[in-house]
């Protein structure tokens, strides 16, 4: 166990954990930020996607020791009131079915649009391909990403 300094959603936090603990479990069980989901544990499904210094990463295999002093953003830190343009687009298209993967999908979409505000269909596919949705909401996700891109460019 060791004290580790974290910067999560703009807030400095100290946790006392095994430095090898993946960021996913630190967020979920030490900081009570459960919007980041456990899906596979091997970075294959994208349910645990967060942003690390603005880049979308899978948190389930990322030891907490390597993110010290880096900026972590989770779904809870995306907006105060759930009104980030990507969240709004998700609601407009009523994307979710079961909803379990959707926070990871949103985090990947946000990172994509920050880098590329006007992505093509192929660029959306490439950026989102690491995020599985078992319910099959892919067509709506793509539509929502495009709506968000449009609303951000206006």
């Amino acid at each position, binding site marked *: *166990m060791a004290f580790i300094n974290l910067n999560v959603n703009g807030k400095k936090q100290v946790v006392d954990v*095994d430095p090898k*603990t*993946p960021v996913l*479990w630190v967020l*979920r*069980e*030490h900081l*009570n*930020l*459960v*919007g*980041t*989901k*456990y*899906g*596979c*544990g*091997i970075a*294959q*499904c994208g*349910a645990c996607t967060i942003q690390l210094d603005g880049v979308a990463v899978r948190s389930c295999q990322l030891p907490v020791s390597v993110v010290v002093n880096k900026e972590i953003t*989770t*779904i*809870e830190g*995306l*907006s105060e009131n*759930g009104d980030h343009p990507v*969240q709004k687009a*998700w*609601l407009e298209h*009523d*994307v*979710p*079915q*079961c*909803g*379990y*993967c*959707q*926070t990871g999908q*949103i985090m990947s979409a946000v990172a994509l649009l920050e880098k590329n505000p006007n992505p093509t*269909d192929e660029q*959306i*596919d*490439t950026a*989102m*391909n690491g*995020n*599985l*949705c*078992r*319910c*099959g*909401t*892919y*067509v*709506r*996700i*793509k539509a929502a990403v495009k709506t968000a891109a449009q609303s951000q460019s206006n």
Partner: protein
Amino acid sequence: MTLIKTTIDRRSFLKVSALAGGGMMLSFSWLAGCTPTTEEALELPKEWFELNSYIKIGENGVVTLMAPNPEFGSNVKTSLPMIVADELDIDWKNVIVVQADFFKERFERQFTGGSQSIRQGWKILRTAGATARQMLVDAAAKTWNVPASEITTEAGTLVHKASGKKAGYGEMASLAATLEVPKEVKLKDVKDFKIIGTSKKNVEGENIVTGKPLFTMDYTEEGMLIAMITHPPAFGLKVKSVDDSAARSMPGIKDVFIIKTLADDYERNGFDTTTFTELVVVAGNTTWEVMNAKKSLVIEWEKISDTNVVVNGWGGKQTVKIPAGLESTTEHKAKMAEWSKKPGSVRRRDGDPEGAFKKAAKIIERTYTAPFLAHNCMEPVNCFAHVTAEKAELYGPIQAPEFIMQALSARLGMPREKIHIRLARMGGGFGQRAYGHHMVEAAAISQKLNAPVKMVYSREDDMTYGIYRPTYTATYRAALDEKNNLIAFHIKAGGIPETPVHAHRFPAGAIDNYLAEGWQIESNITIGAFRAPGSNFIAGAEQSFLDELAEEMGKDPIEFRLELLNRAKTNPVGKDNDYDPERYAGVLELVREKSKWNESQANVHRGVSAYFCHNTYVAEVLDLVIQNNKPVIQKVVAAVDCGIVVNPDAAANMGEGGIIDGIGNALYGEMSFQDGVPEKNNFNKYRLIRHSEAPKSIEVHFVKSEKDPTGLGEPLFPPVFAAVANALYKATGKRPYNQPFIKDLNTSELRM
């Protein structure tokens, strides 16, 4: 207008309300589950008046509607309350939807599955809404001293036109709650629906996109321990011994033990499917610590011997053998090929099929196969339990809470009244969460530890614990005469461990000489419902075969199906045909129009398919193009007849999901075994469809109808397997017979 006898009895309401007063219904921080539907909604009221199990009205007019069924993504948490709201005649924006706990005495039906929530909830929920509305009308009549028949309602307001009197529901709710429940109520005419048939957003949408704790996986409480299980690595093995010395000394670990979840002589019900009744449990403070300790266990396994269990299911009581042995996919395939050649048990016979095949000028015979499939819900199996000497509290993902009560009661040695199940939102279900044995596991672990516990499966545990979609095969034969007329049809289909034959479905009823046979081979690999059981294979096989048959007969595939359906309508063969040929033809005609079937496009390869299951008719046309030497699905157009569509946009979403799921499983889905070991245990090995492989667009068109609604969770899924196969044939010149199709897809054969 329909007059309907109410089944609601005031006294039973009061009785259960008194129970609720003890804190049962509202014990679980119910306000956290509240979702005002818009920002303009009214403030929360100071007091609630309960009109019946489904409806509470606040003094300011805010209405709480209970969502009876557990939610696994089909959006019943929104659509079922919409039905109540319409008959109650209220403004949807002032509705708060609350997930009901499992409470048999209050809610008639709390099962999510079989595409039945809307269909079977329809009358119950309308009656609940209409009854409460009538009680509000009666209260206003009493207060204003006017005849109830002169009072009308509109969006939560009671109006007496002659006297100009008006009141909000909230003003009459306290009196209404004390009145007699009317013996008979009027239900609305379809034309008068105001909420049903309009698209309402998912009531949980904002909570989902902001990452609120909605799933059991997200649940925590003071003193809660985390437990993980280790089940045998192979079907046909059980625990022999455990060396837990390393695990016990690891940080955060509280205990390691073996639990037995069902007694050997326990008489199971039809949903008590479970593979491993003995599990090694590690319990500790955090998931990561427990995961690590679990890896350090040294467990010896031994082979099981043949075991018999008594199952008292819907088909009556029977003894089911769980055979010993370590099974492999290669043996499964060889056995199924062998059984396909033997006679099966006859499920239906019309005319003289054997005679007709003897005198046929041409016989076409094709065999189709599909592997076992894993459900792979995105939320791995988990459950919270807190069992004390007095009661058991459970919170978990469960489609069919009623069916796990017997096992819980037997295992805990506790009467049902002391067991309380709170229904969690599920991160997927697909049939697998109808089998609630994970609740028994969590409860047994909590009882042993005497502490609140959340039991969590790793992805690997989840993918390898069984309850799979069975592996199937079907052989179709068609006899043609000299003039190329279809004179006989034969299907023989089986699987491990069940047959997919639905003997009375189309094209039974459309062909004079017809034979359906089924067979099954026993196995120790457990299976369970998987989105449209049986249909999820047989639709693809049948609709691929009909496509090939149409081609052989020189007919357009849609026209050929319509001819058969016309025969079934005008001069049906046999009895018990379980479909309506007119509605079946209706969706084919609609998909032909909407997909512009008769206008071919250069380089677009099209496949059509249609199927009826779970009370809903579906036809689909799939367009495929070849890009960079790969098949790319451009578009799917679906036509659906499910009667009245309650929540159209959500209904379309469900359809899109079924189509994408079907394409994924047709092309990539497969679970295989070697010496009893599932060969895939995570998403690096088990291929699920991804963003880039989904269709570029999907259109779901509904037949306009005033018939009572039927469900959509399953019906769009089965036919798409054949739409993929038939389009792939157009692109490659080769018909795919074995799922997953990707395995046999030789990209050098693709036609640009």
